[in-house]
């Protein structure tokens, strides 16, 4: 499936490079805690979703770890910058690795793309180091020379585990 779609993308003359660069830049904004710049990557109607069960069908009828629209993302980031956010005192440091980038779907008419990738995020905070990993899928919309995120979906391999507090987006 993935190989077939990749061949399709290549046949359609789509270079994976700009997509991969976009994902790397996005991850870097998170790692540098430039949350407002990160939010600016999302379209006005963009959403950020981290399901709480594997293969979750909908963010509406089931609990999710994160399901933020633009307003909620802004509230989340306001809070991340609040001087009294105890769970970020001290703040998290993170390092993301993004790889295995595959263009899964192309809609030339709308200028929209679905890009799958695999990620690892290491988080260090207050003497504890934690590991998060999984697949992510970016639904992207062409925006001038770059993209805007219509949806970023992060499927953690342990999404249904019991977590200690998670304060920063993955």
């Amino acid at each position: 499936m993935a190989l077939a779609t990749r061949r399709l993308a290549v046949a359609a003359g789509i270079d994976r490079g700009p997509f991969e660069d976009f994902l790397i830049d996005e991850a870097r904004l998170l790692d540098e805690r430039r949350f407002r710049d990160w939010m600016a990557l999302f379209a006005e109607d963009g959403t950020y979703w981290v399901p709480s069960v594997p293969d979750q069908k909908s963010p509406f009828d089931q609990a999710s770890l994160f399901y933020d629209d633009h307003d909620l993302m802004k509230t989340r980031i306001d809070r991340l910058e609040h001087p009294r956010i105890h769970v970020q005192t001290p703040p998290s440091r993170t390092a993301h690795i993004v790889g295995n980038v595959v263009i899964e779907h192309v809609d030339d008419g709308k200028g929209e793309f679905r890009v799958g990738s695999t990620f690892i995020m290491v988080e260090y905070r207050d003497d504890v180091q934690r590991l998060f990993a999984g697949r992510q899928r970016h639904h992207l919309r062409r925006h001038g020379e770059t993209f805007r995120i219509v949806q970023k979906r992060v499927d953690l391999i342990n999404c249904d585990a019991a977590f200690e507090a998670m304060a920063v987006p993955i």
Partner: protein
Amino acid sequence: MKDHGWAYDTDGKLATVPVPEGCGADFDKAAFGLARAPRVGEYRGFVFASLADKGPSFEDHIGPMKGNIDDLVDRAPDGTLALDAGMHRYVYNGNWKLQVENVLDSYHVPFGHASTVNQQGVQFARREGDQKGAAVIETEKKQTAASWKDRKSFNAGNGHGWTSNTTLDDGKRSSPVFDEYKRVLAEKVGAERAAEILTPRLHNSLIYPNMSIMGLNIHVRVIKPIAVDRTEVNIYPIRLSGAPEDMNFANIRLLNVTHSAASFVQTDDLESFVRAQKGLQSHLTDWVDISRGLGAEEPDTATNATRGLATHEMVVRAQYKAWLGYMDEAA
């Protein structure tokens, strides 16, 4: 004997044993069912189990809290709740009682949840219909730190308690979805009863020792001690059967924001629990002061409970008194 393939019915009876001819002549499957909880009770669909052979009866234990369960279940136009929207699971390195104290404590809110209040003193909205649909952003100043000062807490004995008082329908709350809910509820139970249901006594209820019901962003919470310094908490979002699905969806969405492991509210509580546990393990002091409001309690005849300010520590004292009683009984 799971590694020998013994199989059990869903009621716990031993159903089949491989190679039965190896068993003794007097082998009786009926004697080898799964262990049962010594005592089980049920109220309006909630099943409670005790692993202790003796102790207060289920009726005596749950009695003071039946009204709180009614308060929740009665909100469903069809009279039943569905806990089918998954769950939030979080853990922390701290004792289970820290979470139990927290569900009825309002003293921690202004400091503990300061990061959810913006520079204008406005906390994000909490309910479908408060402002615009399912948005979780508030624009009008009302759920501010100051309002927590007026809140009351109630001690119902046995460690149980609740905090007042969040009216579901303050007259201003309106949206097409919420109005539809009110209409459906009134159609099922009558306008008078619907008005009563929408004026509940409760914000949070604690059914001691390990279950709570939150009446605002509605959910049931189960607190599971894992070790003296490790606790898992499960939060079940509630769908009110018969209510507009968009209202139930808004509640599910709101709980992502308030009580997921990545939420805006619960995460600061978890950090507090971890820090409190570190302090408690230091052994540099033997005492924790929980005397706020000592002597200020008063009887609440309407509910047959004892009432105090929710920023006082009456309910915390009541919890430890109950805990000590249960421990003495077990010893």
